[in-house]
């Protein structure tokens, strides 16, 4: 079998990529994509640790089901909030409120 550390390194790279996208991008949709990539990395790590743990239990896989469901809910709500943001500020730029305040 593939060693556990391979999965952990992959999850670490995905989380790093997602964190980079969340911090360095300013487009709100791009930030959401970065957050979803981070979530995917976390799910891979969780399923891998649940499989490789000495005591078998279904807790890992069950938690992943709940995580995917909550991810769907928060993405739906984030998208609606993004539409509201676009209506209010005319753009999906993250720094738009600060700019408008400075003027």
């Amino acid at each position, binding site marked *: *079998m593939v*060693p556990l*550390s*391979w*999965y*952990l*390194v*992959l999850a670490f790279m995905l*989380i*790093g*990529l*997602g964190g*980079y996208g969340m*911090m*360095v*991008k*300013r*487009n709100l*949709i*791009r930030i*959401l*994509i*970065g957050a*979803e*990539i981070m979530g*995917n990395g976390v*799910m*891979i790590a969780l*399923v*891998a640790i649940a*499989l490789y743990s*000495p005591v*078998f*239990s*279904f807790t890992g*896989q*069950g938690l*992943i*089901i*709940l995580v*995917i*469901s*909550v*991810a*769907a*809910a928060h*993405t*739906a*709500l984030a998208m*609606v909030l993004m*539409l*509201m943001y*676009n*209506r209010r500020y*005319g*753009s*999906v730029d993250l*720094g738009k409120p*600060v*700019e408008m305040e400075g003027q």
Partner: protein
Amino acid sequence: MQGFDPALFEQLEFLLIAGIVLVLAYLALEHKEIVYAAFFFGFMASFVAGFFLLLEAPFIAGMQIAVYTGGISTLIIFASLLLPRAQDSTLETFATPRARQISLVVAVVVTVMTGFLAVIFPWAESFSEAFVSISQDLNGLAHWLWFENGIYVQMIALIMITALVGAITLLRMDKAEQLSSITGVFGVEAEPKTTEEATINDDEHAADDSTGVDE
């Protein structure tokens, strides 16, 4: 299958899918067009399901494809079609270079701390792969979720209701104002011109131009 090593094949498959997933995640973050980025994110989510197949979790793989590739990337693509200003390249520039540097530093710190957890922390000693017990038992998973922890399912239903009610309440607020997006920068082109009007307008413009030249 004789003459065929499943372990080696598994490692090759892991490396192949890992490479594809990392390239697609990078493209989803760095591609210039946000719609293509959303498509790359959907592809990435469906390749992550391959890892769940490698990790003996068939239902998680199916749910990943059904919810992430089917639902979440649909939401992102739909919203990026509804927001044409999201393609604006000026959105990606920071006000000052200093803000970008601070963000980069924070991202590097988060990555280094995650890397410490993933690489240096002794996971491999704690979890020996000699004791891996493989179970592809959907019955046990359903028993865990629906019978032992049935309250989680009802909590998920309530979270779903929260998302739905929040969405409809936000969308109902000043719905007249939300229609103003049609008259926005690119909005008026949405109305197809009838041919008569187009020709009349073009003739007017042509006449206007010709008189301008004559004068």
